[in-house]
């Protein structure tokens, strides 16, 4: 039985690809919430428009469907009231569009800090919102004190506010307050041509610029029914794996550095720099920004590129195993990472946690495997999964994924097809919609968009993996000591910009 057989729905939107999108009434919406609350389906996305809300659901057999509820009255039944992973997305829908979630238990603003000079910037009305200071959740008890951190942090990292309630050294509650880097990307995208929108998508979270550009391009291509040339898909995957390598090296070193083990940081920093230099040699930009574009890739790999990458891979294969051995054999380091910051398996499942956060806690989802988009359908690789859910497991997932990315890069170079690297895009003449997920280094990136007849963006929603990982950090830190928070936070390495948009 397919996912949509379970949900009473009206007609399907014909111009939506590749997965079905259906309009539902309130009954269908409530049924979708039932399925989410029961754990039968996983929430992949939840976003609003001026008078509609949309849910992207992932079924048990990796089946995906989108259900949409028209809400002309400006109200819809709250999802978050029964399914906590939807909470921040639902508060965002209210902040941006002014749509009310009926039955919601937490109606505090999320992205709106009361300084935009207007309310509901993407919605119909500009009704003033009652201001006042943000109310953090309370923790009460003898000896409890609060520690407020941020938005400006001590290191070179993105801004966000963390409010700890602690009893001595032990964290009783952590509450995150984000939204500081909200740039209004979805609003800027509306009405823009594809090249400008692709640039915005590529700057949603700079560390995942390839993954975002890749997802955005695939969503456009799905909408316009385009199959890009095989060489382009292979080059995209090559860039995606280089991006994964660079980020995993950076993370492994930074996690160890937060346990005061600077040697590892220095060594992985060298490997990361070598990856970025190889990327620069191949594609003319260290982070490979704006190379993946709708229709293919903007530039071919440089003639000296393949040799540079093979040299890089050989260097990594020489150095990295020693670093892994060093990690594994340093008791003082293991003492910090093992059993620290445990993500419970049931939480990883419930929140649909992607990337190393989910895979270190038993959730075996990787968009490259489960959704097998090109060219990963033709490549052989393993998806490492562990059960422990601690900082150590998140380090090991990254270590194993470095090895898998190297294997993928070999295959890509060996089989790199010849031929064109992009194709011209023709606007559809009528509105059309596309949706795509790609696997960024930290988890799945979702892009859903609607193009108008001229091929401009009408509405584009981008959902970072961090939306479903940030809340788990709050749970993982509970009962850990304050001093282990940097370690836990770094092992998650959630994106602020990606989730604040």
């Amino acid at each position, binding site marked *: 039985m397919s996912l949509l057989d379970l949900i009473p729905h009206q007609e399907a939107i014909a111009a939506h690809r590749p997965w079905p999108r259906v309009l539902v009434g309130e009954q269908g919406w409530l049924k979708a919430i039932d399925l989410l609350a029961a754990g039968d389906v996983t929430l992949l996305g939840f976003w609003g428009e001026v008078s509609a809300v949309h849910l992207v659901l992932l079924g048990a057999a990796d089946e995906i469907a989108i259900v949409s509820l028209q809400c002309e009255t400006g109200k819809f039944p709250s999802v978050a009231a029964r399914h906590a992973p939807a909470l921040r997305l639902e508060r965002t829908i209210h902040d941006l569009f002014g749509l009310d979630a009926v039955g919601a238990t937490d109606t505090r603003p999320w992205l709106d800090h009361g300084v935009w000079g207007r309310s509901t910037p993407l919605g119909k009305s500009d009704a003033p919102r009652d201001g006042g200071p943000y109310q953090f959740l309370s923790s009460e008890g003898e000896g409890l004190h609060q520690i407020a951190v941020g938005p400006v942090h001590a290191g070179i990292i993105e801004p966000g506010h963390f409010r700890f309630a602690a009893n001595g050294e032990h964290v009783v509650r952590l509450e995150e307050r984000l939204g500081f880097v909200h740039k209004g990307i979805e*609003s*800027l995208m509306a009405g823009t041509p594809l090249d400008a929108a692709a640039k915005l998508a590529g*700057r949603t979270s700079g560390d995942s*610029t390839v993954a975002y550009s890749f997802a955005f391009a695939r969503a456009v291509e799905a909408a316009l029914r385009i199959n890009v040339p095989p060489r382009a898909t292979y080059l995209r995957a090559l860039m995606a794996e280089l991006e994964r390598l660079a980020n995993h090296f950076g993370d492994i070193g930074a996690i160890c550095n937060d346990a005061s083990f600077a*040697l590892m940081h220095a060594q992985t920093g060298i490997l990361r*720099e070598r990856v970025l230099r190889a990327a620069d040699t191949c594609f003319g930009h260290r982070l490979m920004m704006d190379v993946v574009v709708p229709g293919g890739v903007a530039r071919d790999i440089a003639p000296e590129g393949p040799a540079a990458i093979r040299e890089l891979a050989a260097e990594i294969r020489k150095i990295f195993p020693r670093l892994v051995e060093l990690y594994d054999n340093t008791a003082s380091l293991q003492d910090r990472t093992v059993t620290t910051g445990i993500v419970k398996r049931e939480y990883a499942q419930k929140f649909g946690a992607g990337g190393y956060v989910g895979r270190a806690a038993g959730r075996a989802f990787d968009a490259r495997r489960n959704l097998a988009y090109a060219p990963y359908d033709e490549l052989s690789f393993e998806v490492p999964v562990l059960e422990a859910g601690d900082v150590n497991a998140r380090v090991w997932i990254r270590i194993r994924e470095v090895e898998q990315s190297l294997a993928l890069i070999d295959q890509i170079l060996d089989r790199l097809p010849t031929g064109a690297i992009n194709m011209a895009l023709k606007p559809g003449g009528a509105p059309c919609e596309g949706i795509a997920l790609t696997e960024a280094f930290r988890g799945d990136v979702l892009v859903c968009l609607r193009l108008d007849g001229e091929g401009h963006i009408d509405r584009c929603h981008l959902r970072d993996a961090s939306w479903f990982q940030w809340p788990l950090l709050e749970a993982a830190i509970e009962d850990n000591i304050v001093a282990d928070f940097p370690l836990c936070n770094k092992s998650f390495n959630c994106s602020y910009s990606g989730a604040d948009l």
Partner: protein
Amino acid sequence: MRRILFESLTHGPLTEQPPAADDAAIAELAKNVEKAAQARLGRSLSIRQVDAGSCNACELEIHALANAFYDLERFGLRFVASPRHADVLMVTGPVTKNMREALKRTYNATPDPKWVVAVGGCAADGGIFKGSYACVGGVSDVVPVDLHIPGCPPSPRALLKGLLALLEHVTGEHR
């Protein structure tokens, strides 16, 4: 661990020759930095980085300045954890409205004499986020800026060039 440390000793250093200080940056600094503030600090500057809405790409490249290839600290430049310890604020991003107040407070918490370096295309004028309801549009709209380092993101080498120009200027070594 001993093997890795030993190899680090026997192999030559990875650290590369510094680039020449950026001429455009020197010209901008000559205009902005007061003569009186020069040569007060010795050949050393403490930098506090503030992300005021960047996509985090600039942060990645600023981080890279600390790796073995660029080794920022050999120039007497180092990143510090508090604005109260800083001589220089290095600001990225199109200054989101949600970060405007935090940036102002960070600036006010930094003791004089101080310099502000705006890093990246967004920090110059808002970049591709210009015109958004959620962005102010450039660091100089919020705090006075002494030096802009362009790029999306600027490479570590470009960052180094700009910072070396600042260092030369501040310490009065440049003619």
